[in-house]
């Protein structure tokens, strides 16, 4: 009962100012994200996808790291088993996004389903982490999420098209460290996300479990095992005052 009432009181607003703020907050993430998008576009061109097919994938899958893994493993002749394998590969790389959606629930849960479910398609790594920071600092405008999502969408689609057309110009992404865009952006986020020593245990457990997972299992499982382990620790630290 009280849960319901507070949900109504805390219901996110929609405002033009919020839309602009969200777009503004995502600007710093664009250069790295666009460079990565250019690599995805160039890889699609190199592998022989036509531009319309590439655009369909960039918009509909909308998850660059998983697309790169899928494209590298694209079978010579597509069978039902090939489709299932690619879907599974993409699912393992993107499993971390389950956590993104879960953590958005307390904030965006009071919104009607028709508003939130289309929006969730545009959840991205930088979009999510920046919006969680915005929320933690007291922001409560759903339009900020939309504004950030729109900026990332436009930048992503134009970067992938640019990369597709430029092709060979981004021949060796490793040489200019484009494979490190995500860890570098996330590393910068460590500073504003730091909540003092209280969360140090959770972070330590997250890091250790992630390292162990990466050592034992190939693929991207380390994000989800590490993050869940760390958050469980946070949840079961009894004397922690609510932040």
């Amino acid at each position, binding site marked *: 009962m009280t*849960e319901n009432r507070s949900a109504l009181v805390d219901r996110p607003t929609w405002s033009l100012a919020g839309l602009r703020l969200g777009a503004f907050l995502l600007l*710093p993430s664009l*250069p790295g994200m666009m460079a990565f998008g250019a690599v995805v576009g160039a890889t699609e061109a190199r*592998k*022989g996808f036509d531009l319309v*097919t590439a655009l*369909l994938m960039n918009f509909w*899958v909308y998850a660059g790291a998983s697309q790169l893994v899928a494209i590298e493993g694209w079978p010579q*002749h*597509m*069978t039902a088993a090939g*489709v*299932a394998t690619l*879907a599974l590969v*993409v*699912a393992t790389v*993107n499993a971390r*996004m*389950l*956590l993104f*959606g*879960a*953590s*958005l629930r*307390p904030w965006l*849960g009071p919104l009607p389903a028709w508003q939130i*479910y289309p929006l*969730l*398609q545009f959840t991205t790594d930088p979009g999510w982490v920046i919006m969680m*920071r915005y929320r*933690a600092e007291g922001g409560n405008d759903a339009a900020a999420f939309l504004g950030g999502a729109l900026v990332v969408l436009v930048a992503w689609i134009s970067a992938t098209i640019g990369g597709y057309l430029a092709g060979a110009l981004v021949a060796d992404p490793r040489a*200019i*460290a484009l494979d*490190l865009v*995500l*860890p570098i*952006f996330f*590393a*910068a986020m*460590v*500073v*504003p996300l*730091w909540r003092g020593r209280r969360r140090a245990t*959770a*972070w330590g457990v*997250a*890091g250790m479990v*992630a*390292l162990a997972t*990466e050592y034992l299992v190939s693929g991207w499982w*380390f*994000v*989800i095992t*590490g*993050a*869940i382990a760390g*958050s469980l620790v*946070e*949840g079961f630290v009894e004397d922690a005052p*609510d932040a």
Partner: protein
Amino acid sequence: MPDLGGLDLGGIDLEGPGTIAAILAMGAVTYSIRAGGFWLMGHVPLTARVRRMLEALPGTVVVATVLPITVREGAPAILAVAAAVGAMMVRRNDFLAVIAGMAVAALARAWLG
């Protein structure tokens, strides 16, 4: 698509309906993951403990992503991550931090291989 034998067209059948089917499946799976976590938490009571866990996720996801990749990629990644964190601590500017990290990473890759 007919079997092209030795003809090299990139070697991959990319125009058939199979390709479109694969892309649609990849997107459907990814969307169900994007929406699934949100949907699932709608069926779990958001107690103080659950909220605390969810609020910790941005930090734990970031650490669990950065640490293994940095360790795996070695010196260039360590220097780049240090530069990004350092720039962020000094200037509190996301943009500068990312640029600093990328620049250090590219230079370190060039020098250290």
